[in-house]
């Protein structure tokens, strides 16, 4: 644990994708329109399994939009129209046969602003397993709640107050609760949209450690505005600009040797 933390704080990014990693999500030619306005232009991106893929780019460049394509969250926006091919384990997630509700159980999401349900901590975590009928009985459900909270690194702080409202936790705890809520349904992919933007450095550090632990078992895609966070937690980085995927590669390469001048400008802070 401490060794890992050391590694994370190293200034030089070392993130690389293992060549043997399989592609979990493959996006090809993704275009997206909000009404008449196009927000994504032919995005091609592979997201490897058991790795963390970071998406960076200036505000409004379409990072969240792309992330929300991956679990069809954009379906809830009336004006949004998606075109292109996104495959999860080789299966087209926009195919007719795919139920978006079921898809979202496989591709979980943690949002930018912590949004626990205004219910008890226990209920927050138990909700997903319950609606999916994952747990057989109360005991199994308790078990899931405990392991999820442990995985999210929140257990020690809340084990005596599971009945208290989730909204009563601190911001960082709420975000970890949301992570516990996401992993409780045992997804294959976890999408995180700026999960630390509302948190202080200590809470951020905890979440980053958590991400590194989770990547052993999950495929993770994270949107972040913090260059250093991308460098610390991800093995692959994708740089978006004005709805276009400008550059993508192993994090170590992107940060030390960007190919595109726009990427270079962005990571050196010349625009944003």
């Amino acid at each position, binding site marked *: 644990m401490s060794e890992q933390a050391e590694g994370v704080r190293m200034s030089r990014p070392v993130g690389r994708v293992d060549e043997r990693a399989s592609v979990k999500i493959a996006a090809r030619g993704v275009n997206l329109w909000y009404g008449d306005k196009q927000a994504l232009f032919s995005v091609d991106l592979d997201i490897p399994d058991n790795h963390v893929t970071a998406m960076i780019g200036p505000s409004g460049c379409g990072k969240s939009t792309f992330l929300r394509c991956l679990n069809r969250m954009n379906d809830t926006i009336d004006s949004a129209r998606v075109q292109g091919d996104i495959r999860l384990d080789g299966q087209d997630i926009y195919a007719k046969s795919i139920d978006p509700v079921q898809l979202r159980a496989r591709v*979980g999401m943690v949002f930018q602003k912590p949004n626990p349900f205004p219910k008890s901590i226990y209920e927050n975590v138990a*909700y*997903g397993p319950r609606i999916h009928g994952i747990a057989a009985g109360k005991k199994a459900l308790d078990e899931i709640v405990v392991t999820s909270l442990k995985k999210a690194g929140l257990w020690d702080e809340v084990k005596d107050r599971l009945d208290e*409202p989730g909204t009563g936790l601190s911001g960082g705890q709420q975000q970890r609760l949301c992570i516990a809520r996401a992993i409780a349904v045992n997804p294959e992919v976890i999408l995180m949209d700026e999960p630390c933007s509302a948190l202080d450095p200590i809470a951020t550090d905890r979440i980053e450690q958590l991400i590194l632990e989770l990547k052993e078992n999950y495929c993770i895609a994270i949107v972040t505005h913090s260059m250093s966070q991308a460098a610390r937690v991800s093995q692959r980085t994708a740089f978006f600009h004005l709805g276009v995927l400008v550059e993508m590669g192993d994090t170590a390469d992107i940060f030390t040797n960007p190919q595109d001048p726009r990427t270079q400008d962005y990571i050196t802070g010349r625009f944003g």
Partner: protein
Amino acid sequence: MASTEVKTGIHTSPEAARRLARRYRQEAFFQFMGLIAIVLALSALAWLMASIFGTGLSAFRQHEVQITASLDPELIDPERTGDPEVMRRGDYRTILQRAIYDRFPEAADDRKLRLQLMEVYSVAGGTGFLRDFVLDNPGRVGDTVTLWIPASDDVDQMLKGKFDLDVPQELRKVTDVQIAWVRELQASGELRASFNKILFLNTDSRDPELAGVAAAVVGSFYALLVTFVLSFPMGVAAAIYLEEFAPKNRFTDFIEVNINNLAAVPSIVFGLLGLAVFLNFFGLPRSAPLVGGMVLALMTLPTIIIATRASLKAVPPSIREGALGVGASKLQSIYHHVLPLAMPGILTGTIIGMAQALGETAPLLMIGMVAFVTQIPESITTPASALPVQVFLWSDSPERAWEERTSAAIIILLGFLTLMNLVAVLLRSRFERRW
């Protein structure tokens, strides 16, 4: 503050001080106007309350007179059958007359005096009380019993000081000799004022001293029950559909505009609609709380729909996203997360709508819930009255005693409204704790 001449930034110059002073003046002026508005509104309310309670409170007391009547079997049950049906038809009026003439023998021989004497007592009330007593205690037939019966409405009003007794006798409702009898009864303890149970337990009557709101209260209750059962689920479901599921297009915009318009339609129009559709077309019973409730439900629906949509809109979208994000279906996210949060607002809207419905008169007049109802309605299809209609009917009656009863009925109506609002507040706080 003005003495700090040393620094003259744009926020410290004398000009800035003047601007600041003006800002405070404007604020003070606004606060003053707001206060005036509140004071005006409160004094209007206080005036209204004072006038209603001032006239109405006296109706909660009613004067009663004692009679000592001999229950002559010849007049009640000459064949000694003991059959309640026979006893019900007994000649209680004569029994009452005899009891009263026995009390004041000096009046018994003069026809004019006799008539005046009978006007001291509530004849219909006394007859009814005697009948009820006999039916309750058939064994007492033949005995001489002492009963309290209501005084006539004029005597009651006189004792409550509603009549000016200084004007000449011809201009008053009560004559000098009647006043003398009343004083005599008072002196001997045969006349007292007590709580007016009749007002709550009786139904409508031609005699003010026997009139009560029971039928109206029950009628209003049934009508509101129908209103609630129809409008709450329908309104909430419609609002959820419109807000969460319906595609946003011209047609739904059109529906939305129309719902908002419906909320502004005068209630009598709904009454006309009820008359044309529910009564004439579907042939539902006239004067029934069922139809009244249906009409009021139409009126309440827009209120509930608008309130529900507003409170659904107020639920932060992040909650929906959180639920959808763990794989809840749309309906699940709404039922498990959005609705509980919207509930306080929905309930408040519903209760406001129901309170409006409770006070609504015009549409009920249209569908005939204005009948003179002397029996407490047994179901939602038996003819009934409603509280506001009762107020309307009583306010239209000429006798002086109706005035205070009208106000009393308003007080009872206000009491129910307060109760409903209390329930709203309680429910609100109950649901709000779950935030």
